[in-house]
């Protein structure tokens, strides 16, 4: 078999696992997302959801009087509030209809008003909801309704088709509502992905001060169950209290534990450099937490930190396969920078540069430009007796989507029983655990290139010198520098004491010479 064919096979298998991958043989369809200006976050969220379907999409703000660029589009979505210009909605409908382009209205469209609801029904399943509302539509006689909302008394169409136009009567594109839409999009785009849920467990935020024995125990437990897992690792730990910095260079025990865990089926995800930003002083490495804006010198800072972090890992034979931004926070430029190094990203997506608080938790794997985004749907294991209850709701919501990915993370310092409980609980569901190492991932810097796939992980070291020296602890952070300061202050103290002693010496000498002068005078006298 030629290498090209092998590659193709590899590619096809990858596609099976990642339906979000582009079909190379088919020109991607154009999806146009029109939106009312204030709904940018919602439009971006929809764009991410569409990223699951090998479709490229573009966003356009729709203002009254502006022309529509429907020409190249195969699908048009329009997001608006019901209170927004209804003439505009009519115009979009008519233009789409005249061009024969299917239209999907999200939000109010021509709805009358918003109604509080208590549950929704989709695919014969009813999901209770709190604090949700839908926009009530007009008469519903001739419609094809895929989802209903209920307020306890009446049913209202949530997702329906009317005269060739699909409607989604809500702008909540996350949680239960968002997942209903996400699942329906498979039918809408006629991409019937297999009904197969995948899952991952990620050991969260492993840093040089983590406990190596915990890592080993976790690895033993999961590998004993045949579960491949992920480990989010940051190679530097900075303790602000005593200004102490330790890196993986300083912690051979942890390095060994991580190597052990890797051998047991763990895949490493780079979770930033130190998780902290030394310039802004914030706890989020690549986002200015305080001012809620991108960090200064973003590209330079991110590049140096990512490269250092990769070097710190790889030189200890710890091979990162994906990236997970600290706190998931990245600016849109930050994603572009990350794309230079990684092909795979783990975690929710930050929707805009306005705030890092607007994160989208996707239900499934999506393609975002050149990044394959592995979502994290369930959140984390809390150190409470009822943590499974918390996860259960999230799981139900996640399972709405036919090929969703159940992602949950676990902190290494929690009791191991919690992890056992989690694994036992997840066994009840038809989930297949993804193994990142078997899938196509690329991590690339000027000094090292990593590729993973069914053939395993391939590492090409282009510059061993850089690999072995980059991120070596700077003196000012290190042991020597810290203690050097003490030494300097010690010198200061010693010199001060001696200066005092010398002053006393001087006084004593003066005393002596005056008594002697006295004596001399007496002799003369």
């Amino acid at each position: 078999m030629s290498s090209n064919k092998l590659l193709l096979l590899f590619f096809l298998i990858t596609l099976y696992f990642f339906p979000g991958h582009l079909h190379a043989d088919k020109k991607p369809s154009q999806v146009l997302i029109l939106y009312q200006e204030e709904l940018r976050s919602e439009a971006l969220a929809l764009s991410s959801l569409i990223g699951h379907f090998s479709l490229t999409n573009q966003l356009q703000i729709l203002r009254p009087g502006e022309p529509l660029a429907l020409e190249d589009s195969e699908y048009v979505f329009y997001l608006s509030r019901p209170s927004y210009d209804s003439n505009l909605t009519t115009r979009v409908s008519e233009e789409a209809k005249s061009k024969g382009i299917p239209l999907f209205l999200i939000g109010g469209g021509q709805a009358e008003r918003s109604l509080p609801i208590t549950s929704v029904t989709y695919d014969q399943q009813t999901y209770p909801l709190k604090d949700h509302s839908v926009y009530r539509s007009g008469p519903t006689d001739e419609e094809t309704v895929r989802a209903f909302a209920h307020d306890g008394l009446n049913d209202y169409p949530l997702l329906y088709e009317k005269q060739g136009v699909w409607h989604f009567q809500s702008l909540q594109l996350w949680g239960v509502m968002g997942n209903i839409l996400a699942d329906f999009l498979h039918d809408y785009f006629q991409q019937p992905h297999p009904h197969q849920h995948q899952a991952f467990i990620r050991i969260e935020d492993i840093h040089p001060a983590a406990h190596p024995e915990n890592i080993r125990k976790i690895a033993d437990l999961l590998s004993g169950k045949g579960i491949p897992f992920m480990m989010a690792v940051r190679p530097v730990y900075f303790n602000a209290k005593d200004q102490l910095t330790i890196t993986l260079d300083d912690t051979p025990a942890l390095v060994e534990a991580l190597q052990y865990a890797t051998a047991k089926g763990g895949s490493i995800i780079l979770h930033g450099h130190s998780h902290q930003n030394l310039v802004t002083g914030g706890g989020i490495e690549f986002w200015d937490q305080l001012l809620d804006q991108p960090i200064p010198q973003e590209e330079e800072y991110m590049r140096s930190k990512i490269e250092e972090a990769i070097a710190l890992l790889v030189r200890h034979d710890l091979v990162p396969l994906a990236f997970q931004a600290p706190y998931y926070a990245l600016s849109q430029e930050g994603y572009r920078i990350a794309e230079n190094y990684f092909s795979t990203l783990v975690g929710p997506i930050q929707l805009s540069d306005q705030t890092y608080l607007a994160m989208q938790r996707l239900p499934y794997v999506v393609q975002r430009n050149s990044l394959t985004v592995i979502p994290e749907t369930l959140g984390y294991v809390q150190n409470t007796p009822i943590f499974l209850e918390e996860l259960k709701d999230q799981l139900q919501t996640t399972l709405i989507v036919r090929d969703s990915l159940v992602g949950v993370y676990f902190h290494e310092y929690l009791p191991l029983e919690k992890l056992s409980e989690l694994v036992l609980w997840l066994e009840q569901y038809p989930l297949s655990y993804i193994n990142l190492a078997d899938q196509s991932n690329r991590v690339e810097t000027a000094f090292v290139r990593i590729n993973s796939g069914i053939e395993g992980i391939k590492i090409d070291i282009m510059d061993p010198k850089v690999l072995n020296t980059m991120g070596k602890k700077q003196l000012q952070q290190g042991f020597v520098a810290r203690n050097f300061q003490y030494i300097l202050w010690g010198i200061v103290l010693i010199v001060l004491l001696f200066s005092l002693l010398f002053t006393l010496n001087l006084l004593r000498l003066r005393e002596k010479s005056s008594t002697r002068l006295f004596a001399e005078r007496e002799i003369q006298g």
Partner: protein
Amino acid sequence: MIIDVLFLLSLSIIWVMLLYYMFLAQGGYLYAMQMEKGAEDLIRQVEVWPKVSILIPAHNEDVVIRATLEAMVHLDYPEDQLEIIVINDKSKDKTGEIVDEFARKFPFVIPIHVTPEQGGKGKSGALNRGFKHSTGEYIVVYDADNTPERAALKNLVVGILNEPQIGAVVGKFRVINAKRNSLTRFINIETISFQWMAQAGRWKWFGIATIPGTNFLIRRSILEELGGWDEDALAEDTELSIRVYEKGYIIRFWPVAITWEQEPETWKVWYKQRTRWAQGNQYVIAKYMPRLFKMEKKRIQFDLIYFFITYFLFLGGVMISNLIFVLGMLDIAKITIPGPYLLLWLLAYVLFILEIMITLRIEKTELTMHNLFMVMLMYLTYAQFWIIIVIRATWMNAQLKIKKQEVKWEKTQRF
């Protein structure tokens, strides 16, 4: 990063030296207190004075030789136990005549006239020649510009009598032309502080002193054993010191024996003289460093390391430190390690002033306002010239090594 490492290294070297000198300064002070009484008791106890030969190498010294010999013949010492050997080393001036004049008047003054054809190299050569003619049990060396105090010789002798482990005794020298100009004032301060810190301090703590070119006494037996002075050494005194220690003897710093000497009055002469000293000391380091670990005497090993640090590492440290300072001012490279550097710099300055004040105070008449001002100025000026001198000396030695040339003994000009 590299700047930080260099900086840490240079700072470490500099402070190791400064702390060492601080320690020596205290030793010097303690020794001065100890020697306060003088050696008069010892002198009174001597019944029979041993035979002493004074060697005075003189090369074109007619400006100073008369005063020197005047002082020599007035030394308080039994004449029959004394011979003053003046080695008139190829002088082209009236040195020979003056020496002969004294020889006629005083039978214990013995002139040796060396002609150019007779060869022999520099001061070491002259000393070796004089030594051959000498008969004394003890050999004393004075430079041709020295005027020892009357009691100097007896003081030197009592420093070694009945002390078999002592091989040589080193007296103190003072500057006779101290008040001539700023340079001689600087030199005066420097020689006083050098002797009380380096000589007295080392003697107090480690039992080490170095033979200077003048005002010292050494056992004839040791010189015979050692084969005299090394004629290749520019710093024949330092070189001789090491060999004395290697033979298992001690060199005693004995500041009660005092001589007064002339110091250069122009910067040019001073510069040449100091370069020669630095070159000479580097020769000694180069000669003995390779066999450092084969040496039996621990304290001289220590002293060699100290010399090595002074002439090579300390120089490097100061240069790097200065370079980093300049780079920092130009905003090219910054030190990223935090530390009390300004405070340390100020403390170094304060320490320097205090140390020298003590040594000046020991000399009773020297701690004047004028001298204090000179000390403060010295740190920033005179002391810094040392860098240039050591660099030049290193450069010249390197050239000699490359061209395989012989060292040339250049005499210091008198005033």
